[in-house]
């Protein structure tokens, strides 16, 4: 293959630059490219919060993509990890009192962002591990997708129905943002500050994800995606890798959920609903499944579309649905895939490929794309 992968540090510098510039691309920012967005946020906190939202969902999508994009297994329930990752810090920060089976559980409000993160990761780790041990040996393919979708509903209904603990449908409000050591107590109350905080966390998580995906472990995931039977006969304990991939991919939504709770300072059961699971699938699909930057691009485009269309059209989820249909049928390699195509076939030829069956048949981009992760 002619095009070589960029050196790791170039990718990470590019990511860092993207994190710094991202707010400017949001609706109202000076680099806003979306003609539909208008100037609804004439430079106030709104678009910065939207940029923070993009980062939160970029982490969420990054986790999802580690599973579907890299190891080839479609989890249609990843919002459960986002939800647990959001509720654990929310409950810890806000405190709770519940009686369950004669036990009186009680926790006072505590504001410690670090412990909240540990709790988010801890609970997600536990649930993801137990779930993976249950479903990985017993399912694969679309069966796996259906089962993950169903188990996500368990988390959704628990958060929805256990009002005593979770506040039910209304969720939990008034969650204080954490206090960072050495900074004023309300430093993070400022949108820009919170964006900076999120960007730093996101950078660490993105770098970790990059590391995992490019490690020998990541190669094994690619092997599983391409040919699970072959991997097994080479001596890989396939199910152990599948469990590990599942658990690792759950940790990124957990971090996203942790940030989401603080960004919104409120949380409700929707965070674990099928809509959120679907959204993150869409972001990956939009950006490019199996590519590293794809899900992050997807998160940005998703929120850009959502934010511009949703304000003007009540039935905007239909537009999102249409995006699914169009991308699945015509551009399963997503936006990142389109860039790869431009690079490989030239712009004109890439467009021709979209409309000409012959041009497409020569090489199917969707199928070829994952291969770019390989190479010596």
């Amino acid at each position, binding site marked *: 293959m002619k095009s070589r992968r960029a050196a790791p540090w170039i990718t990470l510098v590019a990511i860092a630059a993207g994190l710094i510039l991202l707010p400017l691309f949001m609706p109202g920012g000076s680099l806003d490219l979306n003609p539909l967005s208008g100037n609804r946020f004439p430079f106030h906190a709104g678009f910065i919060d939207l940029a923070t939202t993009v980062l939160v969902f970029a982490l969420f999508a990054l986790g999802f993509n580690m599973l579907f994009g890299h190891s080839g297994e479609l989890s249609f329930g990843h919002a459960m990890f986002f939800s647990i990752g959001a509720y654990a810090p929310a409950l810890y920060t806000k405190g709770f009192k519940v009686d369950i089976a004669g036990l009186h559980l009680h926790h006072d409000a505590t504001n410690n962002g670090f412990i909240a993160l540990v709790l988010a990761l801890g609970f997600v780790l536990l649930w993801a591990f137990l779930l993976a041990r249950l479903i990985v040996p017993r399912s694969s393919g679309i069966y796996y997708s259906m089962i993950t979708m169903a188990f996500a509903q368990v988390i959704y209904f628990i958060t929805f129905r256990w009002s005593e603990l979770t506040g039910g449908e209304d969720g939990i409000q008034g969650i204080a943002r954490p206090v960072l050591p050495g900074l004023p107590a309300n430093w993070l109350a400022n949108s820009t500050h919170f964006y900076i905080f999120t960007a730093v966390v996101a950078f660490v998580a993105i770098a970790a994800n990059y590391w995992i995906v490019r490690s020998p472990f990541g190669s094994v995931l690619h092997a599983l995606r391409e040919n699970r039977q072959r991997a097994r006969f080479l001596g890989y304990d396939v199910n152990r890798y599948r469990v590990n991939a599942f658990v690792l991919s759950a940790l990124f939504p957990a971090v996203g959920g942790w940030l989401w709770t603080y960004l919104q300072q409120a949380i409700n059961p929707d965070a674990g609903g099928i809509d959120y699971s679907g959204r993150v699938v869409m972001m990956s699909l939009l950006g490019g499944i199996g590519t590293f930057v794809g899900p992050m691009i997807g998160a940005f485009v998703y929120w850009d579309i959502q934010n511009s269309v949703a304000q003007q059209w009540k039935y905007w989820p239909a537009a999102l649905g249409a995006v699914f249909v169009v991308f*699945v049928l015509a551009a399963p390699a997503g936006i990142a895939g389109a860039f790869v195509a431009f690079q490989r076939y030239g712009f004109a030829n890439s467009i021709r490929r979209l409309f000409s069956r012959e041009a497409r048949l020569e090489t199917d981009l969707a199928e070829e794309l994952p291969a770019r992760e390989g190479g010596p």
Partner: protein
Amino acid sequence: MGHLAESAGVLHNVSDQFFNGVTLGMLYILVALGLNIILGLMGVINFSHGAFFMLGAYMAFTLAPHVGFWPSMFLAALIIGAFGMLFESTLIRPLYRRIPEYTLLLTYGTAMIFEQIVRRVWGDDAVRYPNLPNYLSGSIELGSFQFPIYKDVFLVLITVLILAGVWLLVNKTNIGMIIRAGTRDAEMVKILGINMPVMFTLVFGIGSFMAGLAGALAAPVYAIIPSLASQWIILTFVVVIVGGIGSFWGAIVGGLIIGILSSLMELISPPAVELTGFIIMGLILLVRPRGIFGVEGLFE
């Protein structure tokens, strides 16, 4: 005396919930069997199946005042069935050479579109089905127990009839034989000169027909709202997983178990009603990974 009345009350509650569960179970069976036929025979997962169910309900609601009860049921199912065939031949067919996950993604997207169309046309709020014909709207009384005719008798009878029809279609007709052979060895069937794409479209139509019919049958009993689509599709998945992917009897047993047990849960712990199906699913996965009637290795 008071004690007796109380226990009779409990008995009535249990009986009511049981029969509510049977009603629910019948609808689960129809929807799940439709999904299962498509899944088992074609290896395609249709997330929009729940939307077809919902559309069936709205169709019946819209048609009933104009054409009457019986034609509205039949037409609603037929329209959804035909729509399913159109859907398969335009949107699903290009995906057969890709991994099946892509059909899940596509049909998830279309489900979003269908739900918004329904909101646009019929509004966000629940609509109520017009009155049933007199002979279906009453109740049968046995002692002090009351059984609503439509819900406890008519719906059950219709479901049993449909199930018998599907069973005969799949097991006793040429079409059924071709379909079953085609899923095992599409090449061979093609060599025999049978047009597999047409067969697949037909199968998809039958599956969609059942979802539409279930929706139409549900219309007089449940509130008709756009979110029926997403509520039902996930429960349908659970029924299919519990019963076994691709299994005729699995859909029936799974539908009844989940319908009845989740209704009875109403008496024990109302907040846990929605969780019932998922708990059953978890337990089934532990002891019988492929579901009660599942076939090992069907979807490896």
